[in-house]
């Protein structure tokens, strides 16, 4: 067999250029064309990145521009007379605080008469004002018998008006806020009885049908409990499965079969896991509906393959020399794995786990089937209490007719994105700080 000639490998042009040391026009044109093709290719790549980034900016920009107004709320000052006759100090929760708020409003606008007018007047403040008045009494019982200025939440329509989302120039019939309400609000404003403050309700309470009282905290806690269960189940199972498959299992048809199935499991649509959860955990085992426990179990089925695949990759990345060295000084297989391989693979395993958890955090479809898409006022206190999770809360708000929920929806999305960024940042930090390259 003869050696292939240079010409055969590099083509006739190369041989010519090589032998003569100069390029004919045809060759120069070819090179120019190649450079142009490369430039075009690079430009397409840049265009793709610009396209993706501008989409991202558009998305985030639209969310922030509609959602930022949910982070503050307008309040109205009322001089509430905490009547001794109304409030029984031995049982202060039972008093008619709604009545106290109403009489404070009536005292503020003594000229308002008639049933419908009064009803409109009482609608200036949120229905949560009653509970705010109650809180005042519970905090400081000495207020009973006195009059105190209390800042109560404005109702959602008034809040929207004060935020400038309601066009005053529209005909009265087309506005949610009527002319007489505009007059009252303007008077309260000139009296210095209107102010804005940070929306603490959003971060402190559960869901509500009133936008100004609706909070995200219930969903955050629900997500926390759900992910806790997911982590508690999928992390040990996933890591042990990966360690066994990677370090102990023989390579045969069975392990191949298992590996193929794990990879397939990673691609199963999440709603399927929801149906499984409904059939197995709710109907067969009789676990409670809407509970983070069941949600967590279902989501752990979903994150398991992610964790197993990431853990196996991390274990594979540990060089065999480490194992051989440990075995060489007399360590058992078990000691090799727990003393050397696992600790070295842990940053990679944790990164995979966090990414799996972040995926689970954004999941709604499987939770639909097990009853976590529900209206729940109480903030859950444990894994068996009914609860929702963050993406479900966003979905429920997006479906509500009240206009003020639009901003709440976007605010919820921002909070969820914040948690996702936090988790992914943690994964990046873990990788950067602890990962070892060989």
């Amino acid at each position, binding site marked *: 067999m003869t050696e292939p000639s240079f010409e055969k490998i590099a083509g006739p042009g190369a041989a010519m250029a090589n032998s003569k040391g100069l390029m004919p026009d045809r060759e120069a044109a070819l090179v120019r064309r190649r450079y142009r093709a490369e430039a075009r290719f690079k430009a397409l790549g840049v265009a793709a990145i610009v396209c993706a980034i501008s989409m991202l900016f558009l998305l985030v920009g639209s969310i922030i521009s509609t959602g930022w107004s949910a982070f503050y709320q307008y309040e109205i000052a009322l001089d509430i007379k905490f009547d001794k006759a109304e409030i029984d100090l031995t049982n202060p929760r039972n008093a008619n605080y709604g009545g106290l708020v109403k009489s404070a409003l009536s005292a503020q606008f003594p000229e308002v008469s008639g049933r419908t007018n009064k009803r409109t007047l009482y609608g200036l403040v949120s229905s949560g004002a009653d509970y705010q008045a109650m809180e005042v009494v519970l905090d400081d019982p000495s207020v009973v018998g006195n009059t105190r200025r209390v800042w109560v939440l404005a109702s959602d329509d008034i809040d929207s008006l004060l935020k400038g989302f309601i066009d005053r120039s529209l005909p009265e019939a087309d506005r949610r806020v009527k002319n007489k309400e505009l007059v009252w609000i303007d008077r309260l404003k000139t009296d210095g009885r209107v102010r804005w403050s940070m929306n603490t309700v959003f971060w402190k309470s559960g869901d509500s049908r009133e936008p100004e009282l609706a909070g995200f905290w219930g969903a955050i806690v629900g997500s926390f409990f759900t992910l806790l269960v997911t982590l508690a189940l999928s992390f040990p199972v996933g890591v042990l499965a990966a360690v066994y498959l990677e370090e102990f299992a023989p390579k045969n048809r069975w392990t191949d079969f298992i590996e193929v199935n794990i990879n397939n499991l990673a691609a199963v649509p999440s709603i399927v896991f929801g149906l499984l959860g409904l059939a197995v955990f709710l109907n067969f085992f009789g676990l409670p509906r809407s509970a983070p426990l069941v949600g967590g179990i279902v989501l752990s089925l979903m994150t398991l393959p992610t964790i197993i695949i990431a853990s196996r990759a991390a274990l594979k990345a540990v060089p065999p020399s480490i194992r051989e060295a440990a075995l060489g000084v007399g360590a058992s297989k078990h000691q090799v794995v727990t003393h050397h391989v696992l600790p070295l693979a842990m940053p990679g395993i944790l990164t995979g786990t966090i990414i799996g958890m972040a995926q689970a955090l954004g999941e709604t479809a499987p939770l639909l089937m097990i009853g976590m898409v529900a209206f729940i006022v109480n903030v859950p206190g444990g894994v068996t209490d009914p609860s929702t999770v963050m993406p479900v809360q966003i979905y429920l708000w997006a479906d509500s*007719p009240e206009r003020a929920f639009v901003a709440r929806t976007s605010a919820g999305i921002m909070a969820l994105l914040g948690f996702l960024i936090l988790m992914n940042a943690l994964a990046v930090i873990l990788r950067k700080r602890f990962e070892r390259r060989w």
Partner: protein
Amino acid sequence: MKHLLTATALAAVVSVAAAGSAVARDQIRIVGSSTVFPFSTAVAETFGKTSSFKAPVVESTGSGGGIKLFCAGVGTDHPDITNASRRIKNSEVEKCAANGVKEIVEVKIGYDGIAIGQSKAGADLKLTKKQIFLALAAKVPSGNSMVANPYKLWSDIDPSLPKTKIEVLGPPPTSGTRDAFVELVMREGAKAFPDIKKLGKKEFRAISDRMREDGAFIEAGENDNLIVQKLEANPVAVGIFGFSFLDQNADKIKGAEVEGVKPTFEAIADGSYKVSRSLYFYVKKAHVGVIPGIQEYVAEFTSEKAASDEGYLADKGLIPLPPADRNAMRKGATGLVPLKM
């Protein structure tokens, strides 16, 4: 690392074991219609705040799905109340009874109007049910035969209608709003043609219930907010959605007249606006006394404070029953009189 692994494994075992011994439920569970959901949740919230009971958990599963869950059996694993945007069917009552759910209390809470709306920028529409049928049905009568819907512009149907493209955004077949729209508008419109009216039930429904699929009727998903947003962006488009969404967005969209009546609170309440349906909820009598608070919840829902013209449910868009019906309903509901089909 070993400790971490054992600890997490232990935690998993403990949490599963704890759930196995789930305690008796002390909280009402409600499932059912997404149309009743906003009202049911408002009552649930007020009930939780003003009573000594926990606020009920309300799931939005759709009317049919809710009744299925409700009828699955008696016991704390099954919901206590289901909401429905239509009356329970005979077949469903039978299925319930077969599963041991024998005594059901029916509570009618009011009406929900279905609005046909468009952007404020669009030309006013004054429609009849017959015209809506002609605009949206897959097949319409022409001469002596049925042809695929040829109408492209509203003015093709009737010269008095605007010369704009027929473009209607409506709910998908899975939605209760769609069922009600078909029943209240499409079938009524089809009946205006004697040739169609005299057909057998099956043939009639094949014509009246089928919406056109050539792009003039667009299934816009279950989210009514989305339909409202699309109407805002496209002044020609017409949407079909619940009245509460029209009520909340009165600055951007307007309702079309149907048979000479505009969809307003008053017109739906007095029955002159015909495109409206009744809303119900059903209570499992066997759970009363087992799950605390059911009777009190029913009382709250039917109270004047909630369900009257000036109640908080009216603020949420519910059209209340007339006072006499309301009183009768309250009596039946608080007395837990079981349903007889």
